[in-house]
């Protein structure tokens, strides 16, 4: 019994960590750079489908199935999603800030259409199954299998976290922050805001693609239904709750919001009569929407907001004088 609970906990946390990866990607775009992406689901989906096509065994009824190693699939996913974000960004970042939001919304609609209608590539509404899962050899032992998968996710999140923290402190990250805080001043110092923004947007998109691939291999099956607009909302709620601009906040927000979501979904399915469940589920979504607005109104920095370098400097200076 305890082993079952442990296996479930590992499964739950692995799922939460795949969201944490998306959240980290969004944090590069929004938290570090201030770029608004309403099409997260599209970039995640593109990553998932790319990796699925690259790694599944050949299939007669659709294109591809190249049977490549999982690692190659993940890399391909990050590259494809990164390129897609680069294309969207190159088109809109030089224009007004909300044109990017509208364009990413359009991408989400279009990718959804492509998933459904490009049947020879994506398998249409039925999606793609039999995606190879890491450590498939361990599948007999449920506990070991979930723990191994959890380990992989934790490693990916840790590597991304350390890499992004390093990046934020690097000259590149400092330029991004400078542009976000005062574009004019950064320009006066000879930095080109558009180029840096585009790089950050592509990097964020690539991370989302990687997350999509990781999720697809973890579940083993993908379909257009997994990438509805609600995914975009969930990830935004995670980042806003956790605190934008802060990588630790992004991870914590993902685990917290995913936990609340899973818990309330379980409550709905056990306490609400079957014929009312669809309605109860829509109330769950109302709660996310209202929660997002309330966080924006009352606590725009989230639970763990970004600590601005200036306040950090002030507190450092103040500390020695207290002694």
């Amino acid at each position, binding site marked *: 019994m305890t082993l079952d609970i442990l296996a479930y906990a590992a499964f739950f946390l692995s799922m939460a960590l795949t969201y944490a990866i998306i959240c980290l990607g969004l944090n590069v775009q929004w938290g570090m750079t*201030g770029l*608004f992406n*309403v099409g997260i689901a599209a970039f995640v989906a593109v990553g998932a489908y790319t990796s699925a096509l690259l790694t599944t065994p050949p299939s007669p009824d659709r294109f591809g199935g190249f049977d490549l190693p999982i690692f190659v699939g993940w890399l391909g996913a990050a590259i494809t999603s990164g390129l897609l974000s680069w294309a969207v960004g190159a*088109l*809109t970042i030089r*224009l*007004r*800030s*909300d*044109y990017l*939001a*509208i*364009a990413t*919304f*359009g*991408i989400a*609609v*279009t990718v959804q*259409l492509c998933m*459904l*209608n490009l049947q020879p590539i994506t398998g249409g509404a039925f999606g793609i199954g039999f995606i190879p899962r890491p450590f498939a050899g361990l599948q007999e032992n449920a506990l070991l299998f979930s723990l191994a998968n959890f380990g992989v996710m934790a490693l990916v999140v840790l590597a991304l976290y350390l890499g992004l923290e390093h990046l934020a402190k690097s000259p590149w990250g400092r330029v991004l922050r400078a542009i976000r805080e005062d574009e004019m001043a950064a320009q006066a110092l000879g930095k080109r805001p558009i180029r840096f923004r585009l790089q950050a947007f592509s990097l964020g998109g690539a991370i989302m693609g990687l997350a999509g691939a990781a999720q697809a291999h973890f579940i083993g099956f993908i379909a257009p239904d997994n990438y509805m*607009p609600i995914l975009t*909302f969930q990830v*935004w709620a995670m980042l806003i709750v956790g605190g934008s601009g802060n990588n630790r906040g992004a991870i914590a927000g993902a685990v917290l919001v995913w936990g609340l979501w899973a818990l309330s979904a379980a409550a709905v399915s056990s306490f609400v009569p079957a014929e009312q469940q*669809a*309605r109860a589920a*829509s*109330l769950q*979504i*109302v709660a*996310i*929407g*209202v*929660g*997002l*607005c309330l966080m*924006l*109104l009352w606590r*725009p920095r989230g639970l763990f907001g970004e600590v601005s370098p200036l306040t950090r400097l002030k507190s450092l200076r103040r500390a020695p004088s207290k002694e």
Partner: protein
Amino acid sequence: MNPQFIMDGLIAGAIIGLGAVGVTLTYSILRFSNFAHGELLSWGAYLALAVAGALGTLSAGLTKPIAPFSFGWALPLAAVIAIGLTGLLALAVDALLFSSFRRRGSAIIIMVMASFGASLALRSLLEFLFTSRPAYFTKALQIAMKLGGGLRATPDQLLMLGVTLVSVVTVHLLMTRTDIGRAMRAVSENPALASIAGIDVRRVIRTTWFLGAALACVAGIMSGLLIQIRPYIGHDLLLPLFAAAILGGIGSVPGAMLAGLIIGLCEALAVQAVGAEWRAAVSFVILIAVLLVRPRGLFGKAS
């Protein structure tokens, strides 16, 4: 090729155009792209449905179809009430949400994000209240009339085109010939200067919300009468609305209407030439083309 696509495109375009006029007004006066505008269309349609249902139970005579049309007097009466209610809904959302961001001088993108959250909440609330089962204003069947030139239309569809024409001309006259219209244009040019010149900016903002919501309600009712009412009608129209507002040029009422018609016609053409399953991609292609070739749109001012 069957010329019927022109009629289908014009009617779809009229709905898109009416919604896009609201988007372009909020965009130019409140200065953010309102992702919750689609939900005003859905709420308008459902409010009209609820009011029409209530009127129908009060007096059965109201549901008897008026001669050539498929609906009774209950619907036009309900439409008038629903327009007011949708306007109040928009004002309430503004008072609860957007006004506090304006007071704080928040970044535009925060307002966009808040509108995104509001759209989610409003849409799912509709799903909760009315479930996601499609609803209909009327179950009556209508026979399309031959108009010559291979075109056919039902009396309902012709009425919709007429209502659209009247609404757009009214809004255009309001914007160009009245004091409040001049005030609205002044605020869209320069809010600070406008308020110094003695224009009541808050009144302008209220009028903008009400006007946008009223047009959205008309568009929502038309969309519901044409096909069916679902909580997602507004969400599915949002991309065409944005594409039309940008193609027409932000701030231009005739531009938004014309662009709506263009997008409607392109969609109808694509349905015949490519297939109905790609319809939703048409506005994305147009949006990308506009952003590449002429980001300020047909009648927009260069920034």
